[in-house]
């Protein structure tokens, strides 16, 4: 019997890449989003509490922290985003012809992914300048007005970056909500991809579960954003 033609070089790893993309969206990227929201939500308990949370993170140490940040946050997000952009480019959205709720969720998953990536790229540059290497900081980050966050004055610098302008606050609102939708709906599709919920009834229940997760995350994220936008540091 004739066997399938050999796959292309990229195609041989397509399954692996897509499953990795699915997995890292939850761990570590989704887990980081949750921790990030919880940390920033503490601004509602006052600037001192928020500073304490930041100090706890930085207590990992000046060598350990960057290693953790790069391996568990930055690289997974970049990998997830780049694979995601390829996925978006290789689909042909048809929501105008097939106006089903699930098709809307499929389409919106791609839109929020792209929006979240653009937002995160800007947000990380604005607060951290992407790379904390002296040449880069002096020649790229500072001339472009990035790297505004200072861990020693966490509350003051974090609130200042959100309060920079109405446009920035609006960008945060859109960015936070895009991330929340993308994660909540992503957990739902992940459950189908890996085979956790298979029947239509189970998938309806999973929809409600993921909506609850999304609502919870939205409350955390918007609460943190509200705190950052309204807390005044003297």
């Amino acid at each position, binding site marked *: 019997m004739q066997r399938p*033609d050999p796959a292309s070089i990229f*195609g041989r790893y397509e399954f692996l890449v897509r499953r990795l993309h699915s997995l890292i969206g939850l761990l570590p990227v989704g887990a980081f989003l949750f921790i990030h929201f919880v940390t920033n939500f503490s601004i509602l308990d006052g600037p001192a509490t928020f500073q304490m949370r930041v100090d706890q993170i930085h207590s990992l140490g000046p060598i350990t922290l960057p290693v953790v940040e790069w391996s568990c946050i930055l690289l997974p997000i970049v990998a997830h985003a780049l694979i995601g952009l390829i996925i978006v480019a290789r*689909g042909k959205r048809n929501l105008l012809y*097939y106006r*089903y709720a*699930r098709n809307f969720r499929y389409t919106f998953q791609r839109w929020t992914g792209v929006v979240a990536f653009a937002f995160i790229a800007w947000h990380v540059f604005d607060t951290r300048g992407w790379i904390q290497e002296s040449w880069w900081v002096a020649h790229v980050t500072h001339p472009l007005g990035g790297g505004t966050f200072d861990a020693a004055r966490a509350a003051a610098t974090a609130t200042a970056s959100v309060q920079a302008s109405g446009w920035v606050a609006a960008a945060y609102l859109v960015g936070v909500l895009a991330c929340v939708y993308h994660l909540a709906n992503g957990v739902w599709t992940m459950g189908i991809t890996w085979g956790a919920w298979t029947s*239509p*009834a189970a998938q309806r229940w999973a929809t409600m579960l993921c909506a609850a997760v999304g609502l919870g995350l939205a409350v955390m994220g918007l609460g943190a954003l509200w705190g950052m936008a309204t807390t005044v540091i003297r």
Partner: protein
Amino acid sequence: MNTTSNSSSFHRPIASDCQPGQRFYVRVLRQDGPRKRRYWQRFALEYEADMNCISVLQRIAENPRTDDGRDVAPVAWECNCLEEVCGACTMLINGWVRQACTALVAQLLQDRPGEIELRPMTKFPVLRDLVVDRSRIFAILEKILAWVPVDSYYDLGPGPRQSQEAQQMAYLYSKCMSCGCCLEACPQFLKIELEYREGETPEAYNARLRTANMRAYIGSHAIAQVELFNSNPIGAMNATERLDALVAEGGIQVCGNSQNCVRVCPKGIPLTTAIARAGRAATRHIFRKWFDR
């Protein structure tokens, strides 16, 4: 089994608005050959009792004259069973992908008075007018081994018994007629249409087309067929081969969970259930492949 199919909406009762002799128009998106220019033509017809889109096309073939009085070549289309079990007459009718044989004119005119629009499917290369080349579907079925290989040189005796539950599920999957509705509606399934290269032989072209077909997404119909044949006690003997094909390039991983397929399937096949179950099987298969050998 709860399947979210829209087939019930296709077969709802018709208000008898249409009277025999009533005039209506049919707009057809035409194309004279592969990769040729597309153009619209409109035909005027008189309603007859119980008319469907096949009889519409037969009336046009009898008298291929547009509503502005030009004699044109008859519209080409394909049909076979005329009872929605072969899939040959699948086309876009008023923008919906479905079979022309069960698209009743009275119902179509009730939904959109005065005119019916016929277009070829968009995910397959057009051969002429409403005829498309769906051979990719059959190349895909070959790829996933959508049959039970049985050596018939001698009598193997009866096969193992199957539970009622397994039979019921298998029956749902076995209703697939490879019509391509699920692929037409799928945002992850893209059209493949290759041009002949300069000096290319038909053999070389066909080999290139086959490779392209084999590497692209298989679609939910094929994933349901993997479930069907892997659930069969004898078919399960080749389960590993089918799962290997399922996780090969263009396999189940390309699915984006838009779930349009299950909404447009005319046979109400639980395609998304098949995708999730096959996803679970693929997960198990890949772990077994990496860690059990």
